[in-house]
């Protein structure tokens, strides 16, 4: 088996995942309280109209047919109309998605920039004070809820010190990044804590490996030994964790976007719950789950690139 077939196999795996995600979301939608037809028409419709709308929504057909119909719509990007905004859900989500993508991407970059060097310091000074300090701070960080970190940063750095905007999104790329820095930092701290913990363990596992001794025996510079031989092997173990953490990152985005009033899909999700905007909730659950599957696929590909043994 070579890398090409391995990748094809991995891609084939993702199709049943998507179908399953669709089924779960469909079932969730069927469990919704209230009758969708009266949600559309209100209480004063004639029987004829109710029958017409029922047929139009496909609700007179059997459940499996409805499921297929729903999945077909999803494939075409058809999620219905938002009850609160009265525009197509797909358009609403496309408008809100960029903010969330920038937020999560930026926070991932910040988390990596924090976690990688700190994990190395902690591992190289294992069980001495730099390690204990770094681990102690991150342990407290892991026990602090994201919304509270956000509120603290918001108060201190934005409201009091005026170093950053209090929230919002701004206009244009520069302002987007500027406005999203604090939310991204908030989100990054808990992610960095998880990453640091895993990477520190991985570095400790690798640093005593024979091949690291052999690299030293070749007379390589310490920086090359760490940066090439240790880091690369340690990252392999951590990359799959990054993939698994994308879900938590998106969950955290729901919270940070609410704290910092970022117009992304996370805030949209919370707003939609209070507005009982079910089509939006349904579509968002689906979109975010698909997003996580794609992130998992991406990390698998990165892992394949880092580790020549994958797929062999």
């Amino acid at each position, binding site marked *: 088996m070579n890398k090409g077939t391995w990748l094809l196999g991995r891609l084939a795996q993702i199709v049943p995942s998507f179908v399953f995600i669709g089924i779960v979301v469909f079932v969730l939608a069927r469990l919704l309280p209230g009758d969708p037809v009266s949600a559309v028409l209100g209480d004063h419709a004639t029987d004829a109209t109710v029958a017409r709308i029922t047929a139009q929504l496909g609700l007179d057909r059997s459940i499996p047919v409805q499921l297929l119909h729903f999945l077909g719509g999803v494939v075409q990007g058809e999620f219905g109309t938002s009850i609160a905004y009265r525009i197509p859900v797909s358009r609403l989500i496309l408008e809100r998605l960029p903010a969330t993508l920038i937020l999560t991407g930026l926070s991932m970059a910040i988390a990596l920039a924090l976690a990688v060097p700190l994990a190395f310091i902690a591992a190289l000074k294992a069980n001495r004070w730099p390690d204990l300090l770094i681990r102690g701070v991150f342990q407290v960080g892991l026990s602090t809820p994201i919304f509270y970190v956000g509120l603290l940063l918001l108060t201190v750095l934005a409201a009091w010190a005026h170093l950053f905007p209090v929230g919002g999104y701004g206009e244009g790329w520069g302002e987007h990044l500027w406005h999203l820095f604090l939310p991204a930092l908030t989100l990054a701290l808990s992610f960095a804590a998880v990453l640091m913990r895993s990477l520190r363990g991985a570095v400790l596992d690798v640093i005593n490996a024979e*091949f690291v001794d052999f*690299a030293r*025996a*070749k*007379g390589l510079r310490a920086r090359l030994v760490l940066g090439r031989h240790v880091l690369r092997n340690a990252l392999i173990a951590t990359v799959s964790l990054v993939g698994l953490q994308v879900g938590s990152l998106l969950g955290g985005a729901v919270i940070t976007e609410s704290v910092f009033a970022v117009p992304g899909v996370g805030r949209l999700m919370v707003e939609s719950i209070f507005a009982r905007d079910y089509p939006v909730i349904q579509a968002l659950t689906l979109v975010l789950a698909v997003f996580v599957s794609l992130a998992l696929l991406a990390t698998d590909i990165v892992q394949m690139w880092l580790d*020549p*043994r994958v797929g062999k």
Partner: protein
Amino acid sequence: MSLVVRDLRVVFDTPKGPVWAVDGVDLEVAPGAVLGLVGESGSGKSVTLRAIARLLHANATVSGEVLWEDEDVLAMPPDRLRRLRGAEIGIVFQEPMAALNPVLTIGLQIDESLEAHTELDTKGRRARALELLDLVGIAAGGARLGQYPHEFSGGMRQRAMIAIALASSPKLLLADDPTTALDVTIQDQILRLLLRLKAELGMGLVLVTHDLGVVAQTCERVAVMYAGRVCEAGPVASVFASPRHAYTQALLRAMPGEGARAGAKLVPIPGQAPRLDRPAQGCAFQPRCTVSESACETRRPSMETDGDRRFACYAEARL
């Protein structure tokens, strides 16, 4: 002498207390000579080898003297140590699968060594890498450079590791039991390869092994280690013909013989390997020795010299 080791001691700090892994070892290697360092596992032979190249980790305390061409290795600053490793002293490990980085190509692992120790440009390094693979007997080097360790067979991996160790033509090669992980037929090939390279390149060789047969086949001089000490040293032929330490004798009797000794009865060494966390007061081999006397239990025999032989055994005259 190109390499002189004097009173080398290594103490490992473990959660269960100190372990005296190497306890006063003296060795000498002449330029271009082959020294066999032989002993059971745990006798301190590999630790000695790694201590010479300062490859032990922070939990090891090393004392004594390691002189490389009259320069103190244990006191070398990092830059000098880096040039020593690789450029002057090459090292080959026991397990090529563990010693080669699994995620880097063989080509890169050779190249980085050349980059560190030579002035060659990219093209020159590639040519040299191909030359090295050819030297260690790896055919189709061009394709092999782009491959990863897991794509090599066990013997090929060991050849690749030797090629890496030879990359910048060291004057001395330290080989830590390079054949244990291999099949018997491949073992023989690798030993022959090492001997051929030694002769062609004129470098010295320290060969750590637990196999007396390997020593007989490859080495000029031998040092036998037990419990972190050298118990006997000398030219291979005379040590094998007339051992002057009870442990050497026991080792030889436990080894299937060749030539004159072929067909002789094999006598296994009774008892267990010595405990390094609780060094014995007397001779470390005494509990397992069949010819010991009362002095062996209480007082450690000192090293005696007789011509080119060295040994530390009270029972020497009775062997």
